[in-house]
């Protein structure tokens, strides 16, 4: 396969995201993929690797350094240009939107490298989505813990079963037109105020 001969470098300080991109590229048949997640000595490593394509996250503060390297023929063996040709505004916009940027050595055909950019954009977007979901899940888990503590408080002070304690929380929430988590949080806070030395 022709594309497998492309030497692709992925630079991203986010280790999870960089791994996701690497995996995507390997799955698509690019077997010469190098990832850099530590920026130490970046310029020398790029010169040594001599990549055909560089994919880098847009927020990386080293981009000015990279672009200046590409201008100097002695810093890299082959001249490197911005990835997308300027007429392709949609691709530029999609890349910036996703937070990724890419560079290729001059002379490489756009068609050969466009799949790499497409892949990077979709994986960056997927990563952002994943991050949002993780945040939400983390919030939900936190909420479940608080509800469990509130149930425990009710079970102990009123001698109710777990199901009855939860039913009471739910009924109170419905009557007051509030969320269960808010009622539970209020109860936990109140309990800690009344009994600061207590475990619950």
């Amino acid at each position: 396969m022709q594309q497998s001969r492309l030497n692709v470098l992925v630079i991203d300080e986010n280790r999870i995201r960089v791994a996701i991109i690497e995996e995507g590229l390997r799955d698509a048949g690019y077997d010469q993929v190098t990832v850099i997640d530590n920026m130490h000595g970046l310029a020398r490593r790029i010169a040594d690797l001599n990549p055909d394509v560089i994919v880098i996250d847009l927020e990386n503060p080293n981009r000015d350094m990279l672009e200046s390297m590409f201008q100097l023929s002695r810093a890299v063996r082959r001249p490197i240009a911005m990835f997308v040709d300027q007429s392709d505004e949609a691709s530029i916009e999609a890349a910036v939107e996703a937070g990724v940027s890419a560079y290729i050595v001059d002379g490489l055909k756009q068609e050969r490298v466009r799949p790499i950019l497409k892949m990077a954009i979709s994986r960056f977007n997927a990563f952002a989505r994943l991050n949002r979901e993780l945040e939400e899940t983390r919030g939900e888990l936190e909420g479940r813990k608080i509800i469990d503590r509130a149930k425990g408080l009710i079970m102990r002070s009123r001698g109710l079963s777990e199901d009855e304690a939860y039913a009471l929380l739910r009924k109170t929430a419905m009557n007051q037109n509030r969320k269960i988590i808010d009622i539970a949080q209020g109860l936990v806070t109140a309990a800690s105020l009344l009994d600061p030395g207590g475990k619950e």
Partner: protein
Amino acid sequence: MTTRHAITAGFVPLLDSALLVVACEMGFAEEQAIDLTLLRERSWASIRDRLAVRHIDVAHILGPMPIACNLGLNVPAPEMIVPMALGLGGNAVTVSSALWQAMAENGATADLDARANGVALRKVIETRAGAPLRFAVVHPYSGHNYELRYWLAASGIDPVRHIEIVVLPPPDMGDALAEGVIDGYCAGEPWNTFGVLRRGGYLATVKAAIWRSSPEKVLGVNAQWGRAHPEAMAALLVALHQASLWCARPDNHEALAALLSKQAYVGRDAELLLPALAGNLPVGGGVVHAVRDFFVPNAKAATFPWKSHALWFYTQMVRWKQIEHTVERQRIAAETYRPDIYRAALKDLGLAMPSASAKVEGALLTETPVGSSGALTLGPDGFFDGGRFDPDDLDAYIASQSSR
């Protein structure tokens, strides 16, 4: 009912983002019915990209960069205009402790004198064995790159053969200096004060000593946006002018340092920001030196987008072989800076304004009242080597620099 304007502005966390931050935070944007959103970026490349795809309408940007965009040197290149500058000066050259000791043995002194300290650096380089000294700048198309090279060249040092110049993110420069990866750097604030106070560096000289009252950051505007929103752009210029007056008042310096120190802006201690605002710079070894006009946010027509500034940047692009000179490119560079928009936007404020759009740079040896629409003084604006740049005689200037 006034029309409200929504404007999104990009900035890089540096002291001279002050005008935009103050316009946003101190109510000057609101006074002009502007909903100003500030977007913090970590590289100039990122500023350029977001301008290109219109995530941002305007930006705090390196003075030469909009010119480089219009010349197609910096892609994806949005068409840019510069209707206002964001102050004068503000940079310095910091060197490692080891290099400073060697320079001091060769006559360098803590007074930041560009001539004496440049000669001392040349002597160090002449007697030195091994790899060339390495200096960092923030971007190839930056005032930092050009003033460092100007200083070196006028001191008898060839910035191409006698020294290596690399690009680094300013927040990494202090560490690179302390680790011996670089021997010096030219950056804006707070990174010189940071290098001196927190990483044991020494100030070799300052932008104000190399070229007094010289251009630095500007307001870069996506030209398409500017054409579509002339009223919003004019309102922003008024807000930024009010902000520049506020920033210039010494009794606001502490509040400004505190404001910029917030995480959303520069995100560094106020004590690293105050020296540049007050013009009292720590130069190393516990010594503080007062510098006139270190950073000028308002006086001396500091926000006026001089075409002679744009053209000087262009001559340096030619000098350092970033581009070959043609009359057409010279025209593109000059037309990037738009004093006409500045004048039209601020004309109702009764400001003292320069009547010319370009001036001979380096001609004023003292503070000089100039013929204009009010009381205005310019200068001194001298280059440390006595150089003069006459924008009407640009070819001769380019020729004189290439023969060196």
